[in-house]
């Protein structure tokens, strides 16, 4: 059988290879366009607002069109690919069609530093999502940022971000990915600190940059390790890439410390990078603070795309993470490895942990930020337990409804004169009807309201995978609890903001159409996207895993599925009900304590203070550095300072002694000597008569003498 297969492959290897699709050759245009736009915008002056926004939006529109084109291309190829497999009854080592374009960037000795891009279902889906959500947020920003004086700078950074993020998506080389990854981090830093005059924003930008750097250093280590072991930086290279079976076999045969294989260890290092970017538990602290940036930034970077880049990274290197446990080489599901188990536990823990904190926050954006951290935990857990499709589906749906929520929050903030404290808002249902309706849709999607909202299906996929996970059942219960919390805190937020009565100062007003139109579009997708991932028609999963799926109601008949859906719906209703009961009718006044705070002030205090993670860091890592700095300072001041002072004092004493000697004994003789020396110096100074030619002459003479010496010495 194996021989037949090989013969068949060889047969087709001889056949004229169809040229790569047009789109694959031009895939680089997708990130390049926004980057070029950013470059041009950076040269514009402040008043050129329309041009700047037009350039950014125009370039991203083109990128979106190209991305859609690439997705269509991929769909065609998938059909052809499956048709081929079906006709000839073969299966390829790669379960999905994949087109790569690689080239050598630098050649160092025998090692090639290769860059390249890849188009496969994963990147195609992600490209469309990033450019589409990005485009909507760009349009929204025109309204949101209209009064900002640095409008052009904003669009310059946003455009750069969009380009870099699209670069991360298409990268087929871990180095290219890393470069775009760092660019994304840079733009995140720039945009968090966009209002750099606010000290909080500047501090948050620094915090975000430094915290993600911790993960990135580990990522870099993983990258270097991967390069040194597999000898290539490319992910896919027609069988010679670093995460293709041949290289993985090599990585698996090596053992690192603690019983890990090299593949597992590298996977964990890369996961550290992903955890930094995606705000997973120990490194999540920067994300809530990042809400100091403008709200479109929060929506685009810190909800929809950049933070999801970590999840995307894990999905991209999934074969590496899952190496050794795969049913089939190159498959994108199944198997549990140490690396994936770690991913799962971290994800599940983060999901619950962040949801808990979100319950007790009062800043509208901060609640959403913790919600994002929590949902990213879901995605990680989904990746760890259910494979690429499960995690990515939640990523895509989450991108839409969380962007919607952030933009809705932005609309609220915009309409309520920059008020972000939910206790000072209220009753906006009537004042901002459009915002309210879309926000409610986003909130229900996030809570996972059954059947019509996308969040339900994607979260259900994760819970389903958790239920069938064969390592432990705890993540399932954790995630279920997380769902309850999610429904609860979102209901609390909506109750505060949109129900009750207006507690702020100046009355609120509805935002302009340029802001509400993207909200409406996003709301539509927050509902409709669920349709492509229901158990009856798991098209999305099929697309990512290289299968075609038809509509089949029997999908619901899988064991436990109905019970699971029921349980999850129940949990959601419970959360919604609880929230509505506590906050629905009449939220407390700003000065009054929260309902829950009255019940359990201690726990509430912990949650409000974010479980003291920042304080723990302050007390440990930062305190250690501060202590170490103080020690160094003390050493400088006391120890070395003392030594230096002592030496100085000793020399001072010695100097006094000398001075006496000098005055009464040496001076006489010395003066005489000096005079003699001065006379001799005058004699010598005649040589230096200031005439260039004299110097040149001496130089030439010296050359002659040197040449003579050389010749003479070689003679003897």
């Amino acid at each position, binding site marked *: 059988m194996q021989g037949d297969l090989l013969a068949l492959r060889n047969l087709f290897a001889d056949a004229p290879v169809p040229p790569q699709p047009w789109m694959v050759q031009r895939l680089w245009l997708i990130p390049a366009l926004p980057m070029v736009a950013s470059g041009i915008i950076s040269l514009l002056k402040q008043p050129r607002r329309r041009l700047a926004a037009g350039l950014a939006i125009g370039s991203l529109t083109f990128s979106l069109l190209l991305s859609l084109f690439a997705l269509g291309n991929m769909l065609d190829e998938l059909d052809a690919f499956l048709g081929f497999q079906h006709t000839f009854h073969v299966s390829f080592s790669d379960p999905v069609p994949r087109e790569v374009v690689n080239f050598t960037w630098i050649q160092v000795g025998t090692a090639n530093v290769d860059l390249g891009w890849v188009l496969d279902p994963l990147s195609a889906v992600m490209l469309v999502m990033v450019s589409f959500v990005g485009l909507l947020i760009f349009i929204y920003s025109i309204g949101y940022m209209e009064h900002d004086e640095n409008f052009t700078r904003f669009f310059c950074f946003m455009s750069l971000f969009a380009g870099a993020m699209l670069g991360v998506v298409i990268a087929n080389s871990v180095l290219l990915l890393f470069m775009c990854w760092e660019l994304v981090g840079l733009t995140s830093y720039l945009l968090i600190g966009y209002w750099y005059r606010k000290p909080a924003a500047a501090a948050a930008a620094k915090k975000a940059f430094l915290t993600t750097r911790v993960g990135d250093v580990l990522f870099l280590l993983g990258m270097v390790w991967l390069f040194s072991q597999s000898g290539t930086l490319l992910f896919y290279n027609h069988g010679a890439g670093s995460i293709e079976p041949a290289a993985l076999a090599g990585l698996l045969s090596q053992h690192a410390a603690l019983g890990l294989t090299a593949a597992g260890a590298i996977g964990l290092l890369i996961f550290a990078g992903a955890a930094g970017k995606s705000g997973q538990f120990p490194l999540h602290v920067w994300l809530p603070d990042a809400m100091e940036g403008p709200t479109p930034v929060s929506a685009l970077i810190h909800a929809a795309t950049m933070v999801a880049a970590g999840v995307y990274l894990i999905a991209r290197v999934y074969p590496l993470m899952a190496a050794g446990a795969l049913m089939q080489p190159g498959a994108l599901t199944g198997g549990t490895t140490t690396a994936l188990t770690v991913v799962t536990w971290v994800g599940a823990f983060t999901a619950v942990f962040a949801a808990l904190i979100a319950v007790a926050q009062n800043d509208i954006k901060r609640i959403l930020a913790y919600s994002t951290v929590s949902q990213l935990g879901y995605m990680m857990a989904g990746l760890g337990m259910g494979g690429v499709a499960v995690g990515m589906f939640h990523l895509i749906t989450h991108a839409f409804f969380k962007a919607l929520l952030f933009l809705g929050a932005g609309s609220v903030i915009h309409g309520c004169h920059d008020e972000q404290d939910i206790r000072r808002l209220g009753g906006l249902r009537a004042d901002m009807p459009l915002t309210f309706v879309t926000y409610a849709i986003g909130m229900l999607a996030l809570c996972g309201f059954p059947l019509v909202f996308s969040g339900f299906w994607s979260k259900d996929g994760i819970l389903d995978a958790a239920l069938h996970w064969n390592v432990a059942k705890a993540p399932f219960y954790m995630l279920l609890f997380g769902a309850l919390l999610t429904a609860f805190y979102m209901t609390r937020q909506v109750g505060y903001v949109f129900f009750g009565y207006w507690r702020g100062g100046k009355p609120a007003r509805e935002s302009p159409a340029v802001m509400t139109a993207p909200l409406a579009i996003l709301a539509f997708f927050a509902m409709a996207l669920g349709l492509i991932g229901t158990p009856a028609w798991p098209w999305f999963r099929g697309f990512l895993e290289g299968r075609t799926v038809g509509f089949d109601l029997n999908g619901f008949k899988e064991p436990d599925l109905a019970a699971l859906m029921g349980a999850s719906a129940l949990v959601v209703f419970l959360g919604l009900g609880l929230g509505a009961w506590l906050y629905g009718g009449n939220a407390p006044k700003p000065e009054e304590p929260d309902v829950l705070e009255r019940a359990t002030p201690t726990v509430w205090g912990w949650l409000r203070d974010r479980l003291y993670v920042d304080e723990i860091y302050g007390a440990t890592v930062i305190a250690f550095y501060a202590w170490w700095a103080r020690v160094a300072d003390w050493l400088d001041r006391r120890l070395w300072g003392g030594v230096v002072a002592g030496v100085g004092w000793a020399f001072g004493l010695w100097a006094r002694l000398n001075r006496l000697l000098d005055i009464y004994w040496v001076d006489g003789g010395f003066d005489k000597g000096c005079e003699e020396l001065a006379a001799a110096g005058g004699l010598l100074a005649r040589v230096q008569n200031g005439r260039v*030619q004299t110097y040149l*002459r001496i130089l*030439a003479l010296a050359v*002659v003498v040197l*040449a003579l010496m050389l*010749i003479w010495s070689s003679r003897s």
Partner: protein
Amino acid sequence: MSFAFYLVAGLTLAGGLAAVLLKNTVHCALALTVAFAGLALLFLQLDAQFAGFAQILVYIGAVAILIVFAILLTKGSETPKDGVFSRSWLAGLAVAAAVFAILGWAVLQSAHVLPHEMAVPQVTVLQIGNALMGRYVLPLEIVALLLTAATIGAVIVAMHEKEGRK
């Protein structure tokens, strides 16, 4: 040695001598041009076409013109009253003679180990270009940097200092 070599070498040396000896500075510069042209011809005789043309382009087209400009800008074309040679010209001449003596002696002493006729090297401009962009790319970049720095430096040094400014 061919007649052409003696002719060109004679031209070059005569040009060089004239450049050093003539009274009128502009004549010196023009004689220098003759020496440059002779050297370019010598390069061509040595089958170094590219270097020869580069020599003409750079030295006759640029350096000679620069020198001429400098002469006119410094009113150097008038012959000074107190002679064109410096006070210590004799010492300078002696030193130069000594240098030539030692150089010539060294060349003649080692004449027997110097190689004789070699096959004409076939070097195309393409090879030179590839070498410049490949093996010698770092020196090339450094020279580019040097030329940029020299341009800026020369402009700044020769620029008029504006009155009334810092």
